[in-house]
């Protein structure tokens, strides 16, 4: 975990090392930055919001069920309210008729928020190069991690979530925050206050 990089073991241990035989680990303290602790905590407790529209959602179900057990990654609290979640997993084909609904739900999520595009339909339209399907949900919402596959295996989605966790722990801005920052740089005159 990222926290350990900053682990500092003071040479002058403050405990009574002379009298009691304890391990180094037990009597060590470490210093870190608040930001790092917050990122570490965020990465370890993602609250997923499934936007399941197709077979990918079935794979998602198996990811959160006992066999693959997403709880091991601290992301088992699946919420069906965007206001209670911070990681939207778009699992399945999104058609044009549905796209404003997807955007609305995304906008209802509190920041910081992340989006995982699960499967090729959500990532690029997949084999639906047709009149009715969004050719990648990044037309509508900023995507942090793309998971390929049709559908991706549960391991694939877990790998995607781990990649997102790594990104959060590194302190990288979410795709949404990056886009906002880019916009502020490009249009400083707008002076719009954007959270995050």
């Amino acid at each position, binding site marked *: 975990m990222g926290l350990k990089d900053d682990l500092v073991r003071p040479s002058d241990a403050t405990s009574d090392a002379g009298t009691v035989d304890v391990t180094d680990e037990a009597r060590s303290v470490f210093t870190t930055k608040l930001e790092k602790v917050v990122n570490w905590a965020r990465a370890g407790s993602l609250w997923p919001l499934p936007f399941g529209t197709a077979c990918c959602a079935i794979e998602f179900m198996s990811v959160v069920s006992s066999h693959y057990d997403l709880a091991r990654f601290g992301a088992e609290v699946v919420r069906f309210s965007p206001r209670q979640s911070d990681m939207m997993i778009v699992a399945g084909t999104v058609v044009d008729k549905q796209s404003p609904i997807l955007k609305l739900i995304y906008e209802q999520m509190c920041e910081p928020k992340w989006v995982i595009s699960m499967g090729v339909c959500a990532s690029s339209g997949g084999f639906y190069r*047709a*009149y009715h399907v969004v050719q990648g949900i990044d037309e509508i919402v900023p995507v942090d991690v793309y998971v390929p596959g049709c559908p991706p295996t549960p391991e694939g989605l877990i790998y995607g979530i781990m990649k997102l966790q790594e990104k959060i722990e590194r302190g990288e801005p979410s795709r949404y925050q990056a886009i906002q920052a880019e916009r502020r740089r490009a249009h400083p005159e707008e002076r719009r206050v954007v959270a995050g």
Partner: protein
Amino acid sequence: MAEFVRDNLLNAFGDAVLEAIDERGDLTVWVARDRVHDVLTHCKADAELSFEFCMDVTAVDYLALEVEPRFAVVWHLYSLSTGKRVRIKTPVPEDDPVVDTAVDVWKSTDWFEREVYDMFGIRFEGHPNMKRILTHQDFRGHPLRKDYPADLRWKLAVPDDLVDEMAPEELERIRGRARRRLSD
């Protein structure tokens, strides 16, 4: 197997039946467009036929065959009591793409006909709510027509009002119920 269905229709509508094709027991009956509503009514009401179940309404675009008329509307009927099936087809010209509705015969054809309208642009005369059903309100054109570019998209900015998808009288009934609930 399908002889009695064919003979029944030929006896009742000899002048309106353009062609009856019995392909390995699967009967297809081509009917003139102005008589198709009578034929469908007969198919359900006739005691011998009793096609109680309209399984699907769809259409065909014969653009590549360069035939006139360009479209055909297709009804797939099934009789729950005799276990027989029949396919009724009618030619529809491009410059006047209108067919009589069958909603008064089978209520289930309501959404099928809206789908045919949405995908092929063929209107059903007398339908209670003739509007798009699968694509959204900002969509232009009819995507299953063979001259529609397969990947031409129309973006939608505001969600469609899904309640509006219902037939007007159904919508009024639900709104009335909601009003009563609110006034209580």
